[in-house]
């Protein structure tokens, strides 16, 4: 275990360091609080810190307060070792965030048992962290398999590419495809408020509700034809919005159907980002958007659908706001217009090449490959 000792008093520092080294600990020392604070912020900080209270610059309690305010995954156990020995001192030191408090000069036997307590707590903390990491890895795998469908392979008229970059280990975005008999498929892309396992669970739930709604409508249908997207969304809305309100969760969602027999795109927009419809022949693009609120916002909302025609060579782009809200170092968002203009310029390319151009432009804009929100994007190029 690596221990940091910060004490401006050289005798105490030397004695403590020698004692800890003799007990097998790896020891780092600092002679003031400012240096200690620098060490604590390093990439591989000590697991345990023993701070004197009174030191030049930052004192030990100041450093502990700053440590506790610093958000980091790894917990650093802190002890105060000081000559300040009143009950008020102990209360103030522990109240600042110290895990333990010892009075100088220390008794080696007492220090040793206190260190054992620290090791027990840190060991349990590490076990919890490992368990949490394991769960996140599993959740991320589930998300990749359950929340992100593979595009259909039997639709030669639609060239599809997808990109999903969760901001953390597990994100709140999802998408899905349902292939219909005949030349049509449905597409959903949703963005659950928040990130992490809870958002992924809500994503899985709503995705399942949408599929159940579609299958239920198909099963109940007595006449030929497919249920309209707005019918599917209406059922999912009816069955989930009150639950989402209870969960204090919201989902922006777009449900679209591309129908090659009609050459139309019919969509229901539940407060999601506009669909980009690029028309290279006319050298322009349109932003397809309704004025509906997200799912989980209002039980009384009545969703409607809109239909636009398309032609061969047109490109549709569906995406989450994590993509267009991604910021440059100067805090400039990537933006819908930039995305649409980029796709218009690359509309003759294959969908995967368009997607690669989007990913490269995004990385160049943000000057990074890790984003603060989930970035999900689907590019569909109509081949015929």
């Amino acid at each position, binding site marked *: 275990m690596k221990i940091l000792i910060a004490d*401006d*008093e*050289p*005798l*105490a520092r*030397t*004695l403590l360091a*020698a*004692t800890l080294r*003799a007990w097998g600990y790896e020891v780092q020392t600092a002679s003031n609080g400012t240096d200690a604070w620098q060490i604590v912020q390093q990439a591989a900080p000590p697991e345990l810190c023993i701070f*004197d209270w*009174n030191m030049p610059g930052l004192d030990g309690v100041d450093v502990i307060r700053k440590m506790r305010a610093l958000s980091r995954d790894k917990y650093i156990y802190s002890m105060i070792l000081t*000559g300040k020995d009143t009950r008020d001192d102990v209360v103030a030191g522990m109240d600042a965030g110290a895990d333990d408090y010892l009075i*100088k*000069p*220390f008794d*080696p036997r007492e220090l040793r048992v206190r260190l054992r307590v620290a090791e027990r707590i840190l060991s349990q903390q590490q076990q919890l962290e490992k368990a949490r990491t394991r769960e996140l890895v599993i959740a991320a795998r589930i998300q990749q398999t359950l929340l992100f469908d593979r595009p259909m392979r039997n639709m030669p008229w639609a060239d599809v590419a997808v990109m999903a970059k969760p901001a953390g280990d597990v994100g709140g975005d999802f998408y899905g495809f349902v292939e219909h008999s005949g030349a049509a498929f449905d597409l959903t892309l949703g963005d659950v408020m928040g990130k992490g396992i809870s958002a992924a669970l809500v994503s899985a739930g709503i995705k399942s509700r949408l599929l159940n709604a579609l299958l239920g409508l198909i099963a109940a249908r007595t006449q030929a034809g497919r249920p309209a997207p707005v019918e599917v969304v209406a059922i999912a809305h009816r069955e989930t919005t009150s639950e989402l309100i209870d969960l204090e969760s919201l989902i922006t969602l777009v449900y679209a159907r591309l129908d090659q027999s009609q050459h139309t795109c019919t969509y229901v927009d539940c407060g999601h980002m506009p669909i980009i419809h690029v028309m290279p022949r006319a050298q322009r693009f349109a932003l397809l958007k309704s004025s509906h609120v997200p799912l989980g916002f209002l039980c009384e909302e009545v969703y409607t659908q809109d239909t636009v025609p398309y032609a061969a060579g047109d490109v549709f782009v569906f995406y989450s706001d994590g993509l267009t809200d991604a910021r440059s170092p100067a805090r400039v968002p990537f933006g819908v217009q930039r995305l649409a203009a980029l796709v218009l310029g690359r509309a003759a390319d294959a969908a995967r090449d368009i997607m690669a151009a989007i990913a490269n432009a995004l990385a160049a804009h943000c000057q990074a490959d890790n984003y603060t929100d989930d970035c999900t994007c689907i590019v569909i190029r109509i081949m015929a």
Partner: protein
Amino acid sequence: MVDYLLAGAGDARRLLQHGVSPQNLGSIVAGVVMDSCVYVTIFDRAELLQRTGEDAALAEQLIALFLAEAPPLVQTLQHASAQHAFAAAHTAAHTLKGMAATLAAPALRTAAAAAEHAAAARLELPLEQAGEHVQHAWVALLQLLTATPRHENSDRG
């Protein structure tokens, strides 16, 4: 165990001159340190060795470090006490108190704590008196630590 009672720092020197080893002076007390005549140990070698896990070399290292670091602090405290420079006196007294505590030198620790307290309370006369006590305790301790080789194991008397 208390072996000797001393009236002043000079007694420590005399005892050492008469062949008492520093080890046996480990429990010597100095009545001169406190006005209240509370007898306080000057230096407790056994305590220091216990703190170092019976590591005599480390104990010697700490004593050497103390002898290098303490003099300017004592000097600062003396000057600050006489001048009623409370902040400077407080800082020096606090550090000296900690060093004396680590070294197992209760007389100096007690005197420095009194100086620290007086400086914090901005009490002029008590600070001056505590400054004098620190000086007495320091001289006594210095004589103990420097008069004879510290690695002696037995009383020559």
